[in-house]
C-alpha cells in the first residue's frame, strides 16, 4: 500500500488578516490619541477636577519634581532663565506661557519662577494640569 505524502507544498503564510488588524490599531491611535505635548520622564501634573480653560498651546518651561527647569529640551539653572527666555516677545499676549510643573514641585520655587517671568514681561502664565475623574 502506498501512502500519499500528507504535507502539501510549503506556502507563504497569508498576511492579509494581520495587516487588517494592524491597520485598525493604527487608525485607532491616530483618531483617539493626541500627541503628548511634552516629553519628560516621571512628570506628573496636578489633577484638577474642574474645567478651568480650554486646551493649551505648546509647553515651554518644564519644572520637574526636584525643581529642575527644562526649557526647549535643555536643563537650565534658575539664574539662566532670563538668558533662556531671551525673546519674551514670542509669547504673544493671546497665548499664555505654559509652565509644565510637576505636582510635587516646590510651590515657593514655582512662585519664584513666575515672578522671574513677570520681570521679563511674561505676565500671562498658566500651569498645565490634567483633568481627572469623569472619564
Amino acid at each position, binding site marked *: 500500500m502506498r501512502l500519499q505524502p500528507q504535507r502539501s507544498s510549503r506556502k507563504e503564510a497569508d498576511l492579509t488578516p494581520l495587516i487588517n488588524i494592524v491597520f485598525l490599531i493604527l487608525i485607532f491611535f491616530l483618531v483617539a490619541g493626541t500627541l503628548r505635548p511634552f516629553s519628560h520622564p516621571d512628570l506628573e501634573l496636578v489633577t*484638577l477636577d474642574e474645567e478651568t480653560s480650554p486646551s493649551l498651546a505648546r509647553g515651554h518651561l518644564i519644572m520637574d519634581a526636584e525643581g529642575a527647569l527644562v526649557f526647549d529640551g535643555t536643563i537650565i539653572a534658575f539664574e539662566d532663565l532670563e538668558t533662556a527666555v531671551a525673546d519674551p516677545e514670542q509669547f504673544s499676549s493671546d497665548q499664555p506661557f505654559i509652565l509644565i510643573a510637576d505636582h510635587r514641585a516646590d510651590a515657593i520655587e514655582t512662585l519664584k519662577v513666575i515672578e522671574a517671568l513677570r520681570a521679563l514681561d511674561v505676565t*500671562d502664565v498658566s500651569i498645565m494640569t490634567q*483633568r481627572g475623574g469623569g472619564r
Partner: protein
Amino acid sequence: MQLSDTRPPRRIMSLTPLIDVVFLLLVFFMLSSTFLRFSSFSVEAGGAGTVSVEPSDVVLIHVDQEGALRVNGASVLPEEFNERLAAIKAEGGETIVLVMRTGTKVEDLVTTLATVRSHAFKTIRVVR
C-alpha cells in the same frame, strides 16, 4: 515572423515593505500619543507693589505642609474649607491673601487657588 511573448507571468505584489512601514507608524503613535486630557490653570503674575486695603477686610489663608490650611490663623479642615470661604464671602470679605509656607507643593497651590477662585472674591493675592 513569430514574436514570442517576453513578459514574465504576473506576480502578486509583495506586501512586506508596506507592512514594515505600517508597523513603524503604529509603534510611533503608540509611543507618542496620550489619552490624558490636558488643561491649563492661569496664574496671572501681578506686579510687586503696595495695595491699600483696610486690614480688617483682608482674609489671610496660610497653606502649610501637606496642604494643611489656616484661615486667619485658625486651622480649617480641607473638607470644611469651601464652607468657610462661602461664609467669608457672605460676611463681605473681598480680599484674600494666600500665604504659601515652605515645603508646600504645586498641587497645594493650584488646588487651594482654584477653590478660592470659585468664590469670586474681588482680590486674590499669593505671597510666599
